[in-house]
């Protein structure tokens, strides 16, 4: 197999992986702060993808433009979900939280199925088939654009958590729940805000994803699992870890598609998850709990 082909496929995998990383970043932020497993994460991404498909189909809006209002809508959805549904569950046992979000996920997948049917949909923009030359390599233009956007959004989020008062307050909630209450932070509102921010990430990722893959209602659960794999491999609550995890998973998918059967691609991701859980449960870039 020519080295150039391998390098090309690897680069494509890495670029796609950055978009995966942005999706997983949303999950990492939510889990890192609220400590609730968002089992509806992939389903929320699918909602964003369908919003982008509708925007493109009805008004011919480029998904990369529609991404902004979609992220805002997902932010609102996440905020309301946390404020109304999840806040009362924060101190309930894990299996209760799980069933709550599993129920939300079931409703989301099947509502999409009711509205859009089971057929796969995708968006073909006029630059979909363009490619960019990087040295000897030839990569899809959409993958380069989406990867750069994903990185930019991640950087923006990183700055938000480091530099703003609200961002610092949210990190305080994550570090010490009781302490945050004691110093008078409105933890419930900050939780809702966090869930909103995480949802906005997954919204942006979902809008971009329609340029990269075909969307069906049933891909939601698979992406929920994938987001978990990425976040745990990278390190829970570590933002660079989510991006690194995304890159690794994107790379392993691309490589296993090239060397083995494309249908076996998620097997390597799951194997990676098992290895990380056993030997480095805090993840590659995570801090030890």
């Amino acid at each position, binding site marked *: 197999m020519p080295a150039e082909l391998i390098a090309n496929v690897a680069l494509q995998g890495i670029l796609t992986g950055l978009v995966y990383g942005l999706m997983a970043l949303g999950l990492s932020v939510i889990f890192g702060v609220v400590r609730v*497993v968002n089992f509806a994460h992939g389903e929320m991404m699918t909602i964003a993808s369908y919003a982008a498909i509708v925007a493109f189909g009805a008004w011919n809006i480029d998904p990369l433009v529609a991404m902004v209002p979609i992220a805002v809508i997902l932010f609102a959805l996440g905020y309301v979900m946390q404020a109304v*549904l999840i806040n*009362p569950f924060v101190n*309930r046992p*894990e*299996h*209760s939280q*799980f*069933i*709550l979000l*599993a*129920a*939300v*996920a*079931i*409703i989301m*997948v*099947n*509502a*999409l*199925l*009711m509205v859009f*049917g*089971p057929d796969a949909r995708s968006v073909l923009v006029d630059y979909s088939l363009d490619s960019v030359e990087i040295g000897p390599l030839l990569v899809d233009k959409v993958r380069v654009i989406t990867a750069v956007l994903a990185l930019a959004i991640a950087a923006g989020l990183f700055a938000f958590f480091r530099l703003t008062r609200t961002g610092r307050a949210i990190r305080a909630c994550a570090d010490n729940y009781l302490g945050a209450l004691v110093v008078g932070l409105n933890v419930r509102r900050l939780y809702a805000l966090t869930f909103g921010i995480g949802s906005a990430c997954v919204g942006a990722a979902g809008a971009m994803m329609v340029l990269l893959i075909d969307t069906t*209602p049933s891909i939601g*659960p698979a992406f929920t*699992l994938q987001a*978990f*794999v990425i976040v*745990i491999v990278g390190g829970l609550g570590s933002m660079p870890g989510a991006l690194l995890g995304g890159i690794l998973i994107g790379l392993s998918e691309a490589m296993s598609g090239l060397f083995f*059967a494309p*249908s*076996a691609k*998620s*097997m390597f991701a*799951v*194997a990676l*998850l*098992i290895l990380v*859980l*056993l*030997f480095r*449960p805090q993840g590659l870039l995570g801090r030890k709990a």
Partner: protein
Amino acid sequence: MIARLVDGVPKRALILLGLLMAAMLVAPLLVDPYILSVLVIILYFAYTGQAWNVMMGFAGQLSLGHALYVGLGGYTAAALYVHFGIGPWAGVWVAIAISMAFGLGIGFLAFRFGIGGVYFALLTIAFAEFTRIGFDHFDWVNGSGGLFLPVEQYSVNDLPNLRGSPTMFYYILLALTAGAFLLCRWLLTGRIGYYWLAIREEPEAAQTLGINVFRYKMIAVAISAGMTALSGVFFAFYYNNLFPEQIFNISRSIELILGPIIGGVGSLFGPILGAFVLTVLAETVTEVMHALGYEIPGIKQVFYGICLLVVIIYLPHGIWPPLRKRLGLEQKP
């Protein structure tokens, strides 16, 4: 031993249980084939839910990958039957052994490496998914093409080979469900039940008291996995086909734990009640939608999801514990 099973149980509860069992025993004589098929589904979920409950409800280990054991059990017995003509009554022991071995393997890795809570749950999903994709490429059992059992019209029930009428399957499943119920009651009232309770509520305290936490968690996983393997064997011989995409699917794992969660995690009757409520609900929705002329895919599941949401928000411990109190069936200490 019998005394231990009924000790402290109110007489009314025993009478009601006896009446329920009697009703279930005569049901196939009275109902039409459709209702019988619904009863089979109810018992399937009641039994499988009970098996899952041993791990989660008794020992406090949340498994979200129980479809793994259903699939392994089903595939083992079916493959032995299809390839070597080994009947299910012999194959079932192999199925149980393999499921237990997998369960113990996962448990060993998780408990030795100190993985608990959400991480443990994700590990169980990961192993189930890994196995699903593995079976998709496992040619001996025909990979993603699915494994089929020979289907013929049977005039008489061939019990040794588990080929026969739905009524036969119904009684097998009824016996399994009743057996699982008694087994769980026996486990819970014995020393191991109290150990599990301690491990579930306060693992550190249990360790301090000298309970071998690792060993009793492993026992819970082994029992649960072995019991679940039986569901798989039943599934394979009842439906006569197995697809990795279906049987190992994560949505299957979720489906089979909804019953016990709705009914009441950790309670003995919860999984049975939960299976009744959920299945009847789902079938009713299907029928009503059908009668109204709505044939939209997904509408049933949306309704299902909403019901789940309502129960989990308003009845945090499931339906059974408050109902038990209302009926005055609580156990005397």
